[in-house]
């Protein structure tokens, strides 16, 4: 188990290293930051000074080595726009995005799992068919459109919920959190729901498919033949098998929730990383983009790692070291 974990860790480091190269090269092809950041009215000498200050005059490979060196110290360079360390700029926004993604995931599980279970257990009922049709809507309606509708309905027409910003936050673990205050929760609700919509449908369908796959199996019938109560058959025998694919896929989806919260954050003025990265791309704020991309790589690699471990915990047949 331990050697397998170490092997995974080494693999992860190589993945991250490969990504640094790709990110670095990719970012240098997108555009020339000099054109954007430097006032066109500046004369040649002033221009050269700024370029030198930013290290943009060095050959690419040297820039890469610098970049890698900095990376080891958590230093991605200063943001061209904010003139502060890029990583710091991102980390300030990270809690907001994390909070939004976690809330969306929470909604997706709390709503999707029971509904999927119900639709899987009673597929012939009308309510199940309604649930399944609803999940198709959740899949196919574009997030931004639903977000706008939410705002129109709940914020503009009904005036029930705010539609912009995080509201009142409370400091906890060195960051501000909305979900700890009433006002913050009210602000969180619509964007979280918007972001959760697609994932809820996903969880629902995964769960239902799982139920329909596991339910006809002999071991469920045998569990019933033992005279077990139906709730034990469903909540233990069925669910334990069901959770294996659901947890795996949800783990991966969590990464994408963070990465793709961009749309929702933009619509609801949620001051998270998604909004930041859009702004940074517009301004070609290279250090911030790079730091963001690298953070996403690390996040996905870490998630994969955690999922692997969760998987072995959930399914006794799977071992990290591949058998024996």
């Amino acid at each position, binding site marked *: 188990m331990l050697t397998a974990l170490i092997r995974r860790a080494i693999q992860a480091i190589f993945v991250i290293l490969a990504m640094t190269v790709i990110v670095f090269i990719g970012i240098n092809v997108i555009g020339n930051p000099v054109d954007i950041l430097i006032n066109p009215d500046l004369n040649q000498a002033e221009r050269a000074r700024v370029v030198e200050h930013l290290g943009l005059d060095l050959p690419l490979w040297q820039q890469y080595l610098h970049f890698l060196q900095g990376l080891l110290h958590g230093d991605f360079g200063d943001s061209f726009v904010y003139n502060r360390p890029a990583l710091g700029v991102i980390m300030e926004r990270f809690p907001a995005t994390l909070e939004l993604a976690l809330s969306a995931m929470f909604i997706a599980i709390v709503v999707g799992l029971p509904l999927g279970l119900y639709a899987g257990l009673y597929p*012939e009922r009308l309510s199940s068919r309604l649930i399944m049709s609803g999940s198709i809507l959740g899949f196919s309606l574009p997030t931004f459109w639903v977000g706008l509708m939410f705002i129109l309905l709940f914020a503009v027409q009904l005036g029930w919920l705010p539609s912009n910003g995080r509201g009142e936050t409370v400091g906890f673990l060195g960051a501000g959190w909305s979900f700890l205050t009433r006002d913050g929760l009210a602000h969180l609700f619509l964007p979280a729901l918007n972001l959760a919509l697609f994932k809820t449908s996903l969880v629902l369908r995964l769960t239902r498919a799982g139920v329909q796959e596991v339910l*006809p*199996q*002999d*071991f469920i*019938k*045998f*569990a*019933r*033949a*033992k*005279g*077990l*109560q*139906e709730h*034990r058959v469903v909540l*233990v*025998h069925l669910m*334990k*098998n069901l959770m*294996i694919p659901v947890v795996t896929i949800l783990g991966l989806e969590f990464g994408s929730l963070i990465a793709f919260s961009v749309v929702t954050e933009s619509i609801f003025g949620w001051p998270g990383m998604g909004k930041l990265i859009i702004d940074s791309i517009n301004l070609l704020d290279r250090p911030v983009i790079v730091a963001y991309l690298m953070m996403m790589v690390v996040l996905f690699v870490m998630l994969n790692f955690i999922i692997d471990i969760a998987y072995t915990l*959930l*399914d*006794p*047949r799977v071992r990290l070291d591949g058998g024996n």
Partner: protein
Amino acid sequence: MKPLLDVRGLVTEFPGPSGKGLRAVDDISFQLSRGEVLGLVGESGSGKSVTGFSLMGLIDKPGKVTAGQILFDGEDLVAASPERRRGLRGRRIAMVFQDPMMTLNPVLRIGTQITESLHAHERISRRAARARAREALAMVGIPSPDERLDAYPHEFSGGMRQRVAIAIAMLHQPDLIIADEPTTALDVTIQAQIISEFQKLTEEQGTAVIWITHDLAIVSSLADRIAVMYGGRIIETGGIASVLETPRHPYTHGLIRSVPSENSRGSRLAQIPGVTPSLARMPDGCAFRTRCKRATEECHARPEQFGTELSYHRCFHPYEEVYA
């Protein structure tokens, strides 16, 4: 004395494609006394498993018992409440399935799968349940049962898994065990071991057994009585010796002649011509008439049970009682 099990005119249907019910079990009647072993024999698809599941109350939806009675110790199970049936399942009527690789839940420990069937029927401490589970494993000949309680099914061979399933079935010393081809999926050597151990255990505890099989050799060695199924009906039943020695029904006759024996060695085995028709194409009248050498016009009507409750056949032109 009142029989332990008295099945009267049992019909189990699955909805067919045209909406018309397909009778997987079609008006069967048989009896079983305490401690008696009944061999339920027939080709694949003749309705043996569905008969077993009907007795257990575990017919896959949307199939259901549509007529008849299952009198178990005088109580009609067809009319009993679901909770009453659950209380009997695994406690007084148990079942062992055909494929041991599929009957145990892959993600639950063996110990859990045993103790949960104890908790389902009695108030018992976890400790006591674990001790009982250990005894149960030892009883079916599993070495070092203490450690094996914490193992998962995939760490067991097929034969071992079937022993576990038998241990679970025997836990509450049931009055009746339905063994649905429990050795078909196993190696021949292991088959013999499991059959003899099963026989020993049920004899010791005075358990009545319905042994489902398509193997006449197994039945002849362990059953007291036999019931032969064809097309969802019991076409002949009686004491094991009399049916095997002087079969009356042409199907039973053909079945026995197709089994290799001492005196038929070297000569060609007689095969029953044709194949069993599917449920939807089952001929009216005598279901066997499309394959029967002795069929006449009369066989377009449905043969009733000729004989007594314990020993009858369903044929208009049976072989003579003394069979040359």
